[in-house]
């Protein structure tokens, strides 16, 4: 059979037309496109039912309730728990990334002992426990030779740790320095209040936020954000730079952090002039007299560089509001002068906002289950910096750090005091700066890997108690259980056999079953404890506010900026942090220093200039960014960088601002602070 040209054309055209109508090539093309995207090195997604479990995340500056979505046994995403009073359904970036963070390369999974060469080698948990026990035993005969610093001021584990420490003869049990401690000192010691201060933001219609980043890192900030959005609360902001709170505030007045109390007192001074009836509270007459000559709005405005109309506008807004609330705090937790907090509390007392709807509430102290433990209020009174500055620190032979990172966040002077302690032990879920400084590292379970509880974190509106169950399997023992075991071996009976015992007893105390709490229910208490003998003014307070620490204005004022998206002291930069930190926030291995155009002109600095920022404590390098949201004569720098954490997220990013902090003591209150610090800036 002959094959002619016409046959060939018919074959080709027929083939082409046929292939258009047959599904085979299309199906093949489709399959190829799918196959070519399924290479073995591309991660496969898990399959399985999604299970939702309740938990309490404690990675950031405040604990709050969440739901964890698990595929099988693996946690994959986090969602908010609307019924949890500390979050009201909100989450923060660190919480949102907490499932990925659980698998972080910086996790401590084995116990480690430092050898003579300063290198860590893995040891078994049992061996670590043995070493810890020997150190505790050795401290038995020497009073106050053991120091414990806890990074969690809400957990019942503090009862267990402090009970054992105190029964071994040491009262040196501390929380890391914080605004909570400053509020407690101001409220309890200086104003005769009772319990701790609570903030009824739920019922407040106007907030005057002074100094702190209320919506991003102050108190229960996830709850604060939710309430701000939900209730359309009007916020007036006073502080040294335009932070996340200021961005959404009705009005912002930018003044130095050291002048905040003066601004607040100028408001009171103005209000006393326009108010007919003043609250009949102890000391009110002396107070108004003091304000009249010392904090006259005109004088204050001139001194601190704001306008009188700013003071008057905010004062009138506070007077007109139904339930105003004044909140003050440090730019970074615990760094600021107690006077700002004290002045804010006095302003609240003046406005008659104590134990009122939308005002300050007195929160009762947590129940104490173990009688030999150091009460929460006693721990709040203990000042770690005071200890380090005293001779007592030389007697300390062993320090134990529980889920805290003072070697990163505290001023160098404090770090130097801690580093000299002969033997240091750290319980940490992450290999951070403090872990690296210690001689023995004992892994602490991640928050999803342990049973934990949480009683009323700082900033709460009412007393509350929640429980987080262990929802991911782990071999890492709960440090609280470890302490109970060691106690038993040392012949010390703490009265409980496990950490779950104390949680169960507390649940019973609050009248809620532990299982209900594990499922996400939160016990809350709306009853207020009446403050005893609350005063607004006396000679002590007059002495405090008659002195002025703000005269030393050499160089520029350092404003440390702390924001939640940069992570926390404990964790560092977390997975996805680099996705939310922007180019004007990271300068590669240098930090970013924000200065305003006037300061830039005065110091002959331009955008992107590389500078050295120096204090007597240390120096860092930074790139200049011109930012009009910073007060004149100041330099604002983001904290949270310059970490010594072994993972891909923290490597070579910025420098540690806390190296610059210089410690100061307010002589009248005895309280330490390191913000603002004066710095010298010079071009490199």
């Amino acid at each position, binding site marked *: 059979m002959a094959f002619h040209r016409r046959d060939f054309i018919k074959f080709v055209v027929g083939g082409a037309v046929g292939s258009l109508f047959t599904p085979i090539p299309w199906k093949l093309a489709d399959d190829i496109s799918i196959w070519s*995207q399924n290479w073995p090195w591309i991660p496969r997604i898990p399959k399985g039912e999604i299970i939702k479990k309740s938990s309490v995340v404690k990675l950031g500056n405040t604990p709050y309730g969440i739901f964890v979505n698990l595929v099988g046994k693996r946690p*994959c995403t986090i969602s908010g728990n609307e019924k949890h009073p500390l979050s009201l359904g909100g989450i923060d970036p660190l919480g949102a990334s907490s499932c990925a963070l659980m698998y972080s390369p910086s996790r401590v999974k084995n116990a480690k002992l430092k050898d003579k060469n300063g290198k860590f080698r893995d040891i078994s948990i049992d061996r670590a426990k043995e070493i810890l026990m020997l150190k505790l035993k050795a401290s038995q005969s020497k009073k106050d030779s053991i120091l414990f610093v806890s990074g969690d001021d809400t957990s019942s584990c503090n009862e267990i740790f402090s009970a054992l420490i105190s029964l071994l003869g040491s009262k040196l049990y501390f929380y890391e320095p914080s605004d909570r401690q400053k509020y407690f000192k101001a409220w309890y010691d200086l104003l005769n209040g009772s319990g701790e201060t609570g903030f009824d933001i739920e019922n407040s219609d106007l907030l005057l936020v002074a100094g702190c980043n209320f919506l991003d890192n102050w108190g229960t900030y996830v709850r604060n954000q*939710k309430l701000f959005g939900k209730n359309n609360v009007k916020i007036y902001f006073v502080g040294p730079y335009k932070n996340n709170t200021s961005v959404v505030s009705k009005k912002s007045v930018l003044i130095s952090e050291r002048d905040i109390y003066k601004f607040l007192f100028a408001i009171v001074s103005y209000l006393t002039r326009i108010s007919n009836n003043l609250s009949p509270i102890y000391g009110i007459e002396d107070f108004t007299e003091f304000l009249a000559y010392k904090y006259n709005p005109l004088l204050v405005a001139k001194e601190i560089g704001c306008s009188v109309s700013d003071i008057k506008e905010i004062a009138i807004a506070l007077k007109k509001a139904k339930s105003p609330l004044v909140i003050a705090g440090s730019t970074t937790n615990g760094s600021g002068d107690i006077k700002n907090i004290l002045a804010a509390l006095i302003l609240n007392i003046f406005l008659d906002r104590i134990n009122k709807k939308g005002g300050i509430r007195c929160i009762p102290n947590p129940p104490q289950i173990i009688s030999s433990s150091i009460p929460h209020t006693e721990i709040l009174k203990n000042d770690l910096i005071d200890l380090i500055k005293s001779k007592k620190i030389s007697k300390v032979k062993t320090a134990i750090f529980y889920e805290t990172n003072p070697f990163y966040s505290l001023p160098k002077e404090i770090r130097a005091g801690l580093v000299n302690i002969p033997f240091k032990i750290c319980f940490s879920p992450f290999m951070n700066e403090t872990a690296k400084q210690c001689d023995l590292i004992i892994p602490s379970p991640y928050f999803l890997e342990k049973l934990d509880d949480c009683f009323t974190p700082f900033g709460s509106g009412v007393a509350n108690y929640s429980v987080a169950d262990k929802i991911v399997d782990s071999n890492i023992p709960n440090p609280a259980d470890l302490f109970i075991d060691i106690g038993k071996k040392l012949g010390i009976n703490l009265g409980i056999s496990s950490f779950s015992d104390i949680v169960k007893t507390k649940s019973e105390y609050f009248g809620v079953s532990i299982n209900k709490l594990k499922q996400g229910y939160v016990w809350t208490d709306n009853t207020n404890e009446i403050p005893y003998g609350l005063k607004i003014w006396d000679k002590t307070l007059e002495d405090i506010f008659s002195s002025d620490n703000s005269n030393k204005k050499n160089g520029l004022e350092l404003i440390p900026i702390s924001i939640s998206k940069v992570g926390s002291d404990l964790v560092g930069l977390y997975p996805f942090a680099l996705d939310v930190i922007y180019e004007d926030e990271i300068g590669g291995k240098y930090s970013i220093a924000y200065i305003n155009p006037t300061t830039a002109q005065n110091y002959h600095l331009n955008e992107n200039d590389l500078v050295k920022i120096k204090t007597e404590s240390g120096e860092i390098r930074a790139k200049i960014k011109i930012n009009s949201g910073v007060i004149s004569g100041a330099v604002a720098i983001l904290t949270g960088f310059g970490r010594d954490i072994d993972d891909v997220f923290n490597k070579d990013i910025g420098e540690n601002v806390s190296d610059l902090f210089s410690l100061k003591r307010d002589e009248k209150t005895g309280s330490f602070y390191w913000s603002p610090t004066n710095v010298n800036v010079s071009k490199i």
Partner: protein
Amino acid sequence: MSGLMQIHHEFKVRWGMVIDIDKCTGCGACVVACQAENNIPPATKPFDRLRTVHWLIIYKLTNGKTGKDYDEAYLPRPCMQCENPLCASVCPVVATTKDEEGGIVSQIYPRCIGCRYCMAACPYHARVFNWYDPVWPEGMEKSLTPFVSTRPRGVVEKCTFCHHRFQRAKEKARAEGKDPLDLEEDAYQPACAEACPTGAIYFGNLNNPKHKVAQLIKSKYAFRLLEKLGTEPQVYYISRRKWVREQADNEIKHQKQKG
């Protein structure tokens, strides 16, 4: 829009977003929630544009003034899910289209040939290209979600309003005997809207008067980005600050206006 190919369907349901800029603190919870939910690998170096993938980013806006008049704001930018999606009209392989009830601009990864026409066409820079295969730091791939497949090198991706959540909500409605095209507001919320701690991100059916978004878009303070292009985004913004609204159309100072 004359001269541009238009893909415009009328939908009974138009999922849309209203972002209240005056409530946004720029905290970044929405971005992290989006990345975690949609299996986007975490960035390991700052601003490595070749390796970093974002479906949602936050822009910082400033009013350019100094002293007391200085002001700033944050603007989260997901895919605008335009009613006239320029990306869909240029896609040669129909990998991106707008043809499903709900009005979400799809992105079908296996179909994508990586030509990046859509990226060039999108005036909002909402699309990203995978120059490399996705990599999670060792061990972190264990936190992948079952919701969205991981995308390989050579594929364009973008925000889908968490389409898997839409599918789940529809399935749930069907199982409960409800109309999947008449979902309640809370039945379907993308990860970013759910995570936003200040509630700045509202989400719902723009065609359903019962949904808050339908009311919010009528506000005199509501606006859309680059409205003059006629893309008709389904993402709206609200700001009571005039200077913020003025920046939405990217007007350049002293720009000569035509007509």
